[in-house]
């Protein structure tokens, strides 16, 4: 039996669960753990500039790999700074473990220096949390944390470690548990056979089916099975903002993203469908619009690993609790004996209808001759990255443009804060992606508002030579806020613009990176080419875009899914 300090146990346990990167920031309560980290090379530590960014980096690492991201922070402000990052991961079901230092056990509750009740603070936004009470319990707590974070419906787990437990001077026996099964936690992975049968029969009966694919399909690597089902049934597929990439964006059966800023064809298809199979999607308000008017003709099959997601907002006719990959395997087993040759002919009318909606080309925009349209920038980005980049987005108009105008062919390629909508997410997330995939092209699509919410990480990028490409759509305003103010508040732009923008090119240069400013359409492609020619440098592209552009299509509030504005003047 190995004897070691609590601090060494933390690092040893991280090695035993296979952690490669820890994103963190040192401080009083975790100095012992940092000392243990210093003594080894297996677990790489990334020193961030702000703890929120550490959480987003771990998140980007997790989203792009499927592996659990790890954060290490000190007590008090170090821990509370991660709260937004934890909430972001929680809302999107991203596996993450946050190791937070805590004041020594005997001082807990005394309002000691840098004390906060981290387990309490984070309680509503974690899947689970541990306040470790004894040093010998450290390996088990860490093993359980990683097990919980990345099984069932994934999510963030906090492990709070009082300083006296990790004291480098005290040694304890280290035993890493072989088995972490818990009597109170057994996620259901396989669907109930009876429900599978019902689902299959509903799918085969359907005249107007649609696959509605969400982040759950990405989380359990079910992409190939989704494509297989779509092709077998010859059914159209729409993805949520979180599901983009689970069905290739260039696949002919893919009809675009659905929801508030979904395509006309996706929302029309949903609204008119007679059978919807939801695969790891949760019918959230940014998809359904008014639930009372939601898809009135459809039998709804809802496949989700989290029973609480089923019939939460929209009633499911055929609920199937299970992970999307396992359930699709079961569905495929049932389909093997079915003759599906007539499917294509059966759905011919349905496709004819869908093609009519598609023919309205709802994503068309008028570029004009001078002012650059944001959509045009995303199209250029697609072209210059061959559609193969990891695209991490911030939150706002640029996020929707990046979702709509860059067809993602692979899952995990599109990284964004969908549920919480966290501005400042993009840059650190792209850094996490780059750490996980050093050779890949990691791009941030951001705006002048979002990028300033974690701009300090440009310094971290320099320290670790991360050749990230930042595509900043600069409209000198908080675009999405401004759009809503235009539409709902009679154009009164209350605090949605900034008249003291920094010179982003100089700012990038001050951090030791390359800055490129683009304000003419004719320069866009050349600048983009130049940007991607810097294979070993971070490039910040500050692109001046049309301030008055709105994101369309857009659902009309309180309407059905397919009640939409298609431009400033047209509606369905």
């Amino acid at each position, binding site marked *: 039996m190995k004897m070691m300090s609590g601090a060494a146990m933390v690092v040893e346990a991280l090695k035993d669960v296979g952690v490669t990167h820890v994103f963190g920031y040192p401080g009083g309560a975790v100095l012992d753990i940092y000392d243990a980290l210093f003594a080894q090379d297996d677990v790489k530590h990334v020193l961030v500039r702000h703890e929120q960014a550490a959480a987003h980096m771990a998140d980007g690492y997790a989203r792009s790999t499927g592996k659990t991201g790890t954060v290490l922070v000190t007590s008090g402000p170090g821990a509370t700074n991660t709260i937004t990052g934890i909430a972001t991961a929680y809302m999107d079901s991203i596996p993450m473990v946050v190791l937070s230092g805590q004041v020594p056990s005997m001082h807990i509750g005394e309002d000691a220096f840098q004390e906060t009740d981290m387990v*309490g603070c984070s309680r*509503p936004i974690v899947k*689970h949390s541990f*306040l470790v009470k004894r040093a010998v319990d450290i390996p088990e707590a860490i093993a359980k944390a990683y097990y*919980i974070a990345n099984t069932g419906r994934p999510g963030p787990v906090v492990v709070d470690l009082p300083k006296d437990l990790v004291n480098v001077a005290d040694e304890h026996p280290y035993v890493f548990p072989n088995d972490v099964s*818990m009597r*109170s*936690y057994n996620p259901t992975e396989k669907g109930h056979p009876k429900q599978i049968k019902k689902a299959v029969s509903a799918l085969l009966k359907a005249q107007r089916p649609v696959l509605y694919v969400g982040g759950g399909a990405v989380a359990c690597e079910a992409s190939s099975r989704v494509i297989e089902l779509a092709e077998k049934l010859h059914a159209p597929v729409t993805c949520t903002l979180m599901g983009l990439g689970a069905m290739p964006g260039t696949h002919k059966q893919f009809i675009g993203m659905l929801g508030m800023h979904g395509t006309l064809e996706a929302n029309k298809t949903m609204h008119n469908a007679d059978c919807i199979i939801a695969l790891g999607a949760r019918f959230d308000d940014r998809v359904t619009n008014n639930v009372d008017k939601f898809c009135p003709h459809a039998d709804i099959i809802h496949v989700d690993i989290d029973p609480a997601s089923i*019939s939460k907002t929209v009633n499911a006719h055929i609920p199937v609790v299970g992970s999307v990959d396992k359930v699709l395997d079961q569905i495929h087993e049932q389909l093997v004996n079915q003759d599906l040759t007539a499917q294509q002919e059966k759905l011919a009318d349905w496709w004819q209808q869908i093609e009519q909606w598609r023919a309205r080309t709802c994503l068309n925009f008028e570029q004009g001759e001078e002012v650059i349209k944001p959509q045009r920038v995303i199209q250029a980005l697609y072209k210059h990255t061959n559609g193969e980049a990891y695209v991490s987005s911030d939150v706002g108009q640029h996020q929707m443009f990046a979702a709509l105008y860059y067809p993602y062919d692979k899952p995990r390629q599109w990284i964004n804060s969908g549920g919480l909508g966290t501005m400042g997410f993009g840059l650190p997330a792209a850094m996490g992606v780059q750490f996980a995939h050093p050779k890949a092209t990691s791009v941030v699509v951001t705006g002048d508002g979002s990028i300033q919410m974690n701009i300090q990480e440009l310094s971290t990028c320099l320290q670790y030579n991360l050749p990230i490409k930042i595509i900043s759509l600069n409209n000198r305003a908080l675009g999405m806020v401004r759009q809503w103010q235009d539409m709902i508040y009679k154009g009164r732009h209350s605090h949605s613009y900034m008249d003291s923008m920094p010179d982003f090119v100089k700012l990038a240069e001050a951090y030791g990176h390359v800055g490129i400013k683009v304000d003419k359409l004719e320069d866009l492609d050349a600048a983009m080419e130049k940007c991607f020619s810097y294979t070993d440098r971070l490039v910040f592209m500050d692109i001046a875009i049309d301030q008055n552009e709105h994101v369309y299509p857009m659902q009309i509030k309180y309407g059905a899914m397919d009640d939409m504005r298609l431009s400033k003047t047209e509606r369905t």
Partner: protein
Amino acid sequence: MKRIISVLMENAPGALSRIVGAFSQRGYNVDSLCVAPTDDESLSRLTIVTHGDDKVIEQITKQVNKLIDVLKVVDLTEGAHIERELMLIKVATRTESVRAEVKRNADIFRGVILDVNANNYTIELTGTTDKLDAFATTMGQCAEIIESSRTGVCGLARGERALRP
């Protein structure tokens, strides 16, 4: 509609706060709450009385079930069940006639007088929530209520059904 939800959970620090947190976080009502370790000390059993329509109750049971510390959740009101609540009530008994009336009513409700002082009686009463409500009303009519404390409902399913790990 009133529902009695019974929860079997790990007797671990923080488990209770997670359950209570889930209720407040999602805007569910807590009418009463009763919790203690079971015969197996590693487990706690919690009984929560809440109200809401079927959809809300379904969400409550699912959300509570989702918590890592929770082993089992059952809605006792779905089937035949037994429920009990305990109340301690202290009433002013300054005159002979009030004392007599309080004693008489306590007997009728099968309450037990636990503490007797010059100026007050403390009575223990066990029963359903309705019975306790009725007794409190009766006491309020015949004497001045000084204070009262109730445990909240605890309950078990009738017959073979049981909440076991």
